[in-house]
């Protein structure tokens, strides 16, 4: 009964991709999926994430509700906006700066070869419906922020694929926003490949604020050239089942990689961050800092892997994950991992999970600050180093506003 498993039932509702650039990878994706079912918790990569809710979800992508005003989901008002609304791409209406090319992904003749790390990656290759290509020409500095806004509404289910290339000695900043409205049984999977050229600088803020009844999967596959600097901040503020897969291959010497994450969860949210930094060459540095606050019955998963290959001497790799649980029922599964095959490296990793310091709370209250105010001060302090990594002020403002609304706080930073 190979053909009637839950995965084949699931995929049957998605049309085949019409993105030509993906066709060279189609066969291997088909092969990967053949006979495969949804991963179970026996598989390491899904050990803490049950997919039964997704595999049993009544998804019906034939009647997708219209989005009343998708423009309001843009986080950065000054940005060059690209909207992807239920899979429909809206390119910028005004001229973009020279050296910046934004187009539909279907126009791209060749796309980087993608790794088949799980069934979702394979499904994306076969069923990606749309997406954008953003190319920054070499030696170009784009001052304006580029923002890709993904919006989905009731009963949308689909795969999106983006490709970003930042040419040699170029610089750009991008905000990747995920929003939704009136979602009921929505599923979205977005794959983004990112090539950061030699000596290029690329900064990305991933802002996730989809509503709490949406299955949101997204992955980024990154290749870094020599002397490049790449930073990504993954800011998860909402969502039902959110899964982030970040895979970075550091392929050129003297490259710098910064990956930071912040997740603020409540209700029954489940947010999983899987990251891999693969140091393949010598003299590179990576810094990873993920922090989370969990309330109610929320669950967070952090699985961070750092590979230091045999040739990657003089690597400096640091990884840290810290969590604060503010409810008895919240939980965290944190697994930092280092695999080192070189002998002259500096690497460290660590993970902490705890509650707020009672002594500090008492101290603040003894000065007249309410328990609620004291809690907020301490939580803000806990998050402050990750918040400081956000380089775009509009993003920071939005993050704080969203947190205040969701948790009924009055943070003022």
């Amino acid at each position, binding site marked *: 009964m190979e053909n009637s498993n839950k995965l084949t039932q699931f995929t049957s509702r998605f049309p085949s991709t019409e993105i030509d650039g993906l066709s060279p990878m189609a066969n291997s994706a088909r092969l990967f999926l053949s006979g495969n079912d949804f991963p179970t918790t026996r598989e390491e990569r899904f050990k803490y994430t049950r997919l039964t809710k997704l595999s049993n979800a009544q998804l019906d992508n034939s009647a997708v509700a219209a989005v009343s005003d998708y423009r309001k989901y843009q986080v950065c008002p000054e940005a060059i906006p690209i909207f992807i609304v239920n899979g429909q791409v809206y390119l910028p209406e005004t001229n973009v700066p020279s050296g910046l090319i934004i187009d539909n992904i279907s126009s791209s003749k060749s796309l980087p070869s993608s790794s088949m790390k799980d069934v979702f990656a394979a499904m994306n290759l076969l069923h990606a419906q749309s997406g954008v290509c953003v190319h920054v020409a070499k030696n170009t500095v784009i001052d304006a922020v580029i923002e890709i806004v993904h919006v989905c509404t009731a009963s949308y289910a689909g795969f999106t694929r983006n490709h970003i290339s930042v040419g040699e000695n170029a610089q750009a900043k991008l905000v990747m926003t995920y929003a939704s409205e009136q979602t009921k049984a929505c599923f979205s999977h977005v794959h983004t490949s990112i090539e950061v050229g030699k000596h290029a600088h690329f900064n990305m803020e991933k802002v996730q604020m989809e509503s709490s009844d949406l299955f949101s999967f997204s992955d980024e596959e990154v290749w870094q050239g020599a002397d490049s600097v790449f930073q990504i901040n993954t800011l998860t503020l909402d969502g039902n089942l959110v899964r982030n897969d970040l895979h970075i291959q550091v392929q050129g010497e003297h490259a710098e990689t910064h990956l930071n994450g912040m997740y603020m969860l409540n209700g029954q949210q489940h947010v999983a961050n899987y990251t891999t930094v693969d140091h393949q060459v010598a003299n590179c540095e990576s810094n990873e800092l993920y922090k989370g606050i969990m309330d109610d019955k929320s669950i967070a998963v952090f699985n961070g892997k750092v590979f230091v290959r045999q040739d990657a001497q003089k690597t400096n790799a640091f990884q840290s994950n810290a969590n604060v649980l503010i409810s008895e029922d919240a939980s965290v599964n944190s697994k930092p991992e280092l695999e080192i095959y070189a002998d002259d490296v500096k690497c460290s990793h660590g993970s902490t999970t705890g509650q707020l310091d009672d002594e500090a709370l008492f101290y603040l209250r003894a000065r*007249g600050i309410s328990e609620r105010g004291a809690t907020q001060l301490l939580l803000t302090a806990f998050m402050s180093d990750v918040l400081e990594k956000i380089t775009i002020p509009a993003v920071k403002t939005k993050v704080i506003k969203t947190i205040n609304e969701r948790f009924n706080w009055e943070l003022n930073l």
Partner: protein
Amino acid sequence: MIKIENLHASIDGKEILKGLNLEVKAGEIHAIMGPNGAGKSTLASVLAGREDYEVTAGSVDFDGVDLLELSTEDRAREGLFLAFQYPVEIPGVSNINFLRTALNEIRAYKGEEQISAKDFMAMVREKSAIVELDSKLASRAVNEGFSGGEKKRNEIFQMAMLEPKLAVLDETDSGLDIDALRIVANGVNKLKSDKNATIVITHYQRLLDYIIPDFVHVLYDGRIVMTGTKDLALELEEKGYDWIKESIDA
């Protein structure tokens, strides 16, 4: 100002305060001395509302308010200030931000207007001078990386900012060298008025050379067993506590 009657308090089922009586009037400074384990810090903790302690009997009237009925923050808002024996380091929370939050919450409680940023900063400059606290320390994270002396000066700086009716100094002299001790004591003296009061809890007489108490009480085995003037402190310094223990236990 404060009237403590027959106060009994225990922690983890062990009774520490066993019927403590104390009355402090506005304008007065009271010193509470006693051997280790007598219940000095317990008294400070119970007054501030530390939840680990259970009050099993007695009453505390604070300027007409039943103190024991109030939450920790409301006690502070009513004008009680505890200078901690071991001030807590709070990384990431700036001293300034924390104090402005505290000051504004106290003002809101009293139905007063929020302090403007300009007035607040002027106040910080004025009050930090009282304890010779570098204004750089005022803008750092609460007590983080402060020396022992700086932490205690920061306590008195906070006291100056919050202008309490009653300050309880819990072993503020512990760990201080003579210079820091003098600075801290000067700060306390400068803040003294006929409208506020201070309870100085200490093991040693030394601090009382600088902060002159109106009354000295000896706390032993959970009760005030002796009350005198500052001469009692000198006598304790000279003779230790054993003679008191002996006279009580006998």
